[in-house]
């Protein structure tokens, strides 16, 4: 049997000095090779692994036929952002995990094929050619992350007059402020945003729902429904000594400075960031990996501290692998206990406690336990990447909106919130999850909104 096609990558020694994309994508020949491995299973178990039910064998079949345009069409039916998902989906635990070939450790590289086709679509500026007749019914979408973008696009395709309101000055959510350029080029996100505007979606940035645009304004202007996709952007801290130090950042601050505000191009772009010679990153997820790899590219020697072992790390395997190749040091079974600074308040030292694994906790992962053994590391900066909670702004301003004890907005299986006509989806309802889950939620909510408006005419 043919081997899974490798993807070309920038050499680790080179790429650790630039912000250009790490993985280079398949060329046509490579894509054809990989596509030929798909067995086009009737049952297509791979589809059940994809939260958006992408028509996997169907689009792969068109690659085999070299009808990339058709493949693109099929792909886009279920996934509005395939160029993004092809790059950042945790495929190894989603679609590819369910592929029949996965048992032999040789799953079809669905994500890479998805990326190939999506990039073909971008290069050739393909559109979906959907004729939508405007019905002049206004719907507002709050937040322009993957959930909001998807919901807005699907509603526009149905003929609705969609206004997409984004708090920041740039649309894209985590795709622009969190995930770095070298993993997801911002030009791709921009392309997708342009595409939904071509569909008729009216994007308005610098608009914060609950601040300069409110539910009462929307009602007054005749809006019939609202979708909230405001994400999980509230950074968590550990509340340990020294977290207030000058060069101790939340991952959100660190990544926003670098990705959204382009501090890596300072002073061409005007927002600064200071990493110093040595950076310690705390955490084990994608966010921690992104922060560590950004710090490395800004010239720091980077150590990542995670309280469990590599096996329990929630980050994508590929990202951990890339980070290790680039020279990031990993200190597993360690947890920071305090940071020490100099007289001006800059981080100097990180004190960590060695941990050991105990009994499994609620998540099924073995719980890290303290050992009392403390060590110290030199560091000039620290990035705390231990997770994000749901954004609270909207919930605080809409008192009738039911929330859970985790602060997420409560929704039913059709993404209805407790207020009729208001729908929600993505990280704001699930807590920090994945791009494709947010897309899935945006799609489902769009359907629910269509039905809601039909029934309330």
């Amino acid at each position, binding site marked *: 049997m043919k081997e899974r096609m490798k993807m070309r990558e920038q050499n680790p020694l080179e790429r650790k000095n630039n912000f250009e994309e790490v993985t280079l994508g398949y060329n046509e020949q490579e894509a054809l090779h990989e596509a030929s491995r798909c067995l086009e299973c009737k049952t297509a178990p791979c589809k059940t692994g994809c939260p958006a039910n992408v028509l996997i064998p169907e689009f792969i079949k068109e690659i085999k036929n070299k009808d990339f345009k058709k493949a693109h069409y099929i792909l886009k039916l279920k996934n509005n952002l395939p160029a993004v998902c092809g790059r950042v989906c945790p495929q190894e635990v989603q679609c590819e995990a369910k592929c029949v070939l996965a048992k032999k450790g040789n799953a079809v590289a669905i994500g890479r094929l998805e990326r190939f086709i999506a990039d073909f679509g971008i290069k050739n500026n393909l559109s979906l050619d959907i004729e939508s007749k405007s019905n002049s019914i206004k719907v507002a979408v709050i937040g322009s992350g993957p959930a909001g973008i998807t919901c807005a696009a699907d509603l526009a395709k149905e003929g609705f007059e969609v206004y997409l309101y984004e708090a920041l000055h740039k649309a894209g959510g985590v795709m622009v402020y969190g995930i770095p350029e070298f993993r997801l080029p911002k030009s791709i996100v921009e392309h997708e945003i342009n595409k939904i505007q071509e569909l008729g979606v009216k994007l308005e940035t610098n608009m914060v729902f609950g601040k*300069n645009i409110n539910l009462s304004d929307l009602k007054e202007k005749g809006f019939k429904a609202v979708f909230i996709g405001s994400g999980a952007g509230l950074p968590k801290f550990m509340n340990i000594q020294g977290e207030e130090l000058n060069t101790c950042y939340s991952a959100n601050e660190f990544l926003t400075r670098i990705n959204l505000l382009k501090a890596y191009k300072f002073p061409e772009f005007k927002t600064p960031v200071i990493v110093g010679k040595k950076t310690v990153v705390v955490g084990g997820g994608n966010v921690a990996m992104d922060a560590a790899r950004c710090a490395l590219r800004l010239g720091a020697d980077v150590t990542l501290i995670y309280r469990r072992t590599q096996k329990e790390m929630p980050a994508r395997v590929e990202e951990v692998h890339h980070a290790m190749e680039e020279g990031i040091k990993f200190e597993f079974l360690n947890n920071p206990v305090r940071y020490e600074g100099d007289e001006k308040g800059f981080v100097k030292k990180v004190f960590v406690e060695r941990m050991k694994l105990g009994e499994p906790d609620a998540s099924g992962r073995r719980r890290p336990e303290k050992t009392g053994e403390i060590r110290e590391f030199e560091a000039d900066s620290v990035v705390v990447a231990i997770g994000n909670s749901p954004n609270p702004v909207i919930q605080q301003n809409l008192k009738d909106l039911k929330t859970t004890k985790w602060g997420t907005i409560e929704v039913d299986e059709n993404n209805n919130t407790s207020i009729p006509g208001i729908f929600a989806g993505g990280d704001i309802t699930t807590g920090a999850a994945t791009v494709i889950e947010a897309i899935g939620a945006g799609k489902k909510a769009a359907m629910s909104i269509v039905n809601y408006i039909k029934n309330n005419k």
Partner: protein
Amino acid sequence: MKKNEIMEKKKLSDGSYLFKIYNPEVAKNSYAGNFVIVIAKDGSERIPLTIMEYTDEWISIVIQPIGFSTKEICFLEEKDCFSGIMGPLGKKIENKKYGTILFVAGGIGIAPVIPQMMEFKKTDNKIILIHGARDGEHIILEKESKKYTDNYIICTDDGSMGKKGLVTNAMKELIESGEKIDHIVTIGPLIMMKFVSDLSKNYSIPTTASLNTIMLDGTGMCGSCRVEYDGEVKFACVDGPDMDAHKINFDVLLRRNARFKSLELVNGEKK
């Protein structure tokens, strides 16, 4: 009129500029205590500035050109548009009758004080203002200040206008004279607010300070603006900017506000 268009630009005697900006959505929702995040041009920094006046259509801001981004903004002219204005952000003041409210403003800090005096006047408070600055030229917005105050005290470092000396001296004098003060609001340089806060603590007068921390998003997403508040972490952009001064760790704040000093731009270039 386009959104974010500069309707009027006025130079004040201290070198600051007052901008009137067209943006009905922001203006309609604004109230004393709110600020906006301003982006001068595409690629510029996101800068927090207090909303001074608000109507149904426009807001005004007063900005002091102290570093690269504030200067970049001051180069904008009438009819130019800001690339972005986001807000109103932060908590609105809780407007009620305290009795006598003493405002202690330093330099440009008078701009954020004005809307507060205006609103607190509406709820029948007696308003006393101590405005301190380097010299007479740095005493700005006198006309507006007079309008809302029952007692308006000016002090300058060099004595070129009003009393000579620091705002804390004037404050002490006022309190010692037997004036009963129910609440203090202080806005100005951090170091001044720290001293005002220390002093008011001695007299056990509840005090609010407006925190000018370094911000990015202004919506609680990044934690850049975090302060140590009664031993807890709070975000000035959503929990403030006006916060109980006696609970703020000013020393941490002073250090954090200087954290990018080494990267300050001179004419758009690194030093």
